[in-house]
């Protein structure tokens, strides 16, 4: 499968470095962009859209260079910005139609697709109302409608569920999943809500301080079905941790008393109890846990060097 977004040493400086030598080849149907505030998610999106020029390196979207073919790229991109972005004193259908026309649709087609897009996102009944009168949730849906009205191949959604109440959030997530499953468009979803990304994306790119902290295929992670054991102990567990390593298990200490580990073939849970008893350690809690996005994200945030690594390396200390 061809790459959707190919980051090739992409760096962006605004007097100070914001994005630093990003390298990744993303192929997912829905790519989640994660990171704490100031990690560079929005700057990356803006650079892909051609709003900021790269200071070094480049990126390609569907094999088109973002600097040389910026206008070409924008033909097949739909963008839903994070902040409120509207054209004043317009009805929603007029606004979406205008956006369609600016994307190159003929006037009549733009009007037809504006109606369709608004019905699709669930604003069919409210489409003749002025945007100023819309609630926050409706405005988010209107922003989604303008991003898809021209039927783009790549839809970039910047914090699409921001400020939404639970039912509207669910509606937004359902729409994103529906677009993804249609196979008609790839999605880049930037969000600080891990749940949103987990529910919609098959790949994630975690940014930290302008660098790629993690690039992982969630789908493969899920398929691998790796089960973790989360163990909470009482007492000085250093000897216990060493002994777990001695069994050949992959492990990570996630807190003073918490250990996450993957059992090797041939190693049973009772072996852990045995080790603990031998070292006079109490096992207070023992849970089976899937490798969740939260774990991947938190681990990425803990990792200080900001190097690119796969999700599999999370358990190797």
């Amino acid at each position: 499968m061809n790459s959707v977004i190919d980051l090739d040493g992409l760096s962006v400086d605004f007097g100070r470095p914001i994005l630093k030598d990003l390298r990744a080849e993303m192929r997912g149907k829905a790519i989640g962009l994660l990171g704490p505030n100031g990690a560079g998610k929005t700057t990356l999106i803006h650079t892909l859209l051609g709003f900021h020029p790269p200071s070094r390196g480049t990126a390609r979207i569907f094999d088109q260079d973002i600097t040389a073919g910026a206008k070409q790229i924008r033909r097949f991109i739909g963008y839903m910005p994070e902040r409120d972005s509207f054209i004043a004193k317009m009805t929603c259908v007029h606004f979406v139609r205008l956006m369609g026309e600016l994307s190159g649709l003929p006037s009549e087609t733009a009007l037809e697709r504006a109606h369709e897009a608004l019905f699709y996102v669930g604003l069919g009944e409210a489409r003749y109302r002025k945007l100023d009168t819309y609630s926050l949730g409706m405005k988010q849906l209107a922003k989604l409608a303008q991003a898809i009205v021209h039927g783009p191949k790549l839809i970039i959604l910047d914090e699409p569920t921001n400020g939404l109440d639970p039912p509207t959030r669910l509606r937004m997530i359902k729409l994103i999943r529906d677009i993804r499953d249609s196979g008609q468009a790839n999605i880049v979803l930037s969000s600080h809500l891990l749940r949103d990304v987990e529910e919609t994306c098959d790949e994630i790119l975690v940014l930290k301080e302008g660098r790629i902290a993690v690039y992982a295929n969630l789908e493969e992670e899920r398929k691998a079905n790796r089960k973790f054991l989360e163990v909470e102990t009482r007492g000085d567990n250093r000897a216990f941790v060493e002994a777990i390593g001695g069994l050949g298990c992959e492990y990570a200490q996630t807190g003073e008393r918490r250990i996450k580990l993957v059992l090797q073939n041939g190693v049973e849970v009772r072996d852990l109890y045995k080790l603990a008893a031998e070292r006079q350690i109490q096992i207070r809690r023992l849970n089976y846990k899937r490798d969740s996005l939260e774990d991947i994200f938190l681990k990425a945030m803990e990792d200080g060097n900001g190097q690119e690594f796969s999700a599999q390396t999370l358990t190797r200390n």
Partner: protein
Amino acid sequence: MAVYEHTYRQYEGPTTPEWSRFLIIPRHAYRSIFGSKLFIALFVACFIYPLIASIFIYLHHNVNAMAIMRVSFGDLVPIDAEFFQTFITVQGIIGFFLNMLVGPPLISRDLANNALPLYLCRPFSRAEYVIGKMSVVMILLSLIMWIPGLLLFGFQAYLEGGGWLWQNLHIALAIFVGSLVWILLLALLSQAVSALVKWRMAASAALLAIFFIPSAFGEIINNIFNTRGGHLISLRAIIGNIWSGLFGTFVRQTGSFRGRINGQRISFTLIEPPLWSAWLALILIGALCLYLLVRKVRAYEVVR
């Protein structure tokens, strides 16, 4: 994404030519502009003077009408370069007020509503955006300046017959170029102000100030120093001189003084700045406006 299907589908149909996309902006802008009663009243008023001018031209060539109205040929103003220059001047002044109503909110509203990323994430450049916004003003002002001006010229040429058209072709050129220069200047000024000032009323006031304050200041300089150099900072004087140059009515010596002040005999002449300096001032103003537009019209401002 058909309404009944409720599924997402890509668009693979025909697209509009790229060169024509800037015209989408004025087409949509006129919807709200022509929704204003104040604008419609002013727009209709813009056609009063062309109507009067056409009556003048008609009277010039209709002896019966002159007899009915009891006017003699000598009472009527001659239909010459000055007649058309007056026409452009009157329409230019009305155009300025029309521009004050239409121009300032065009970019400022988009900036206030963070709409620029929506325009610029599409195959639509910043230049196309600015040209689109400027064309909202330019099309409207064209409708009240050079288009009726050339129609009047054609009307006069038709009624006059003979070689009048060829002898006075420079007037047609002056109507077109003179109007275009003024329209372009107004469009650039209003869009630059609109990009700088987000509040519509403040933007309109700023536009008025740009026009009148330097003019007043220029007149003060002229009166204190007995010169015409102050006209170089007066937009009114700059465009007036350019129009005069185009219509062939430009006179450099505009006055003289001879007399005694405190017992000393003094004489001087008032000389208008040369035409090239008016053109240069105009180009500098235009360049400044373009610079401001380049700085302000961005999808996002980068905070360094």
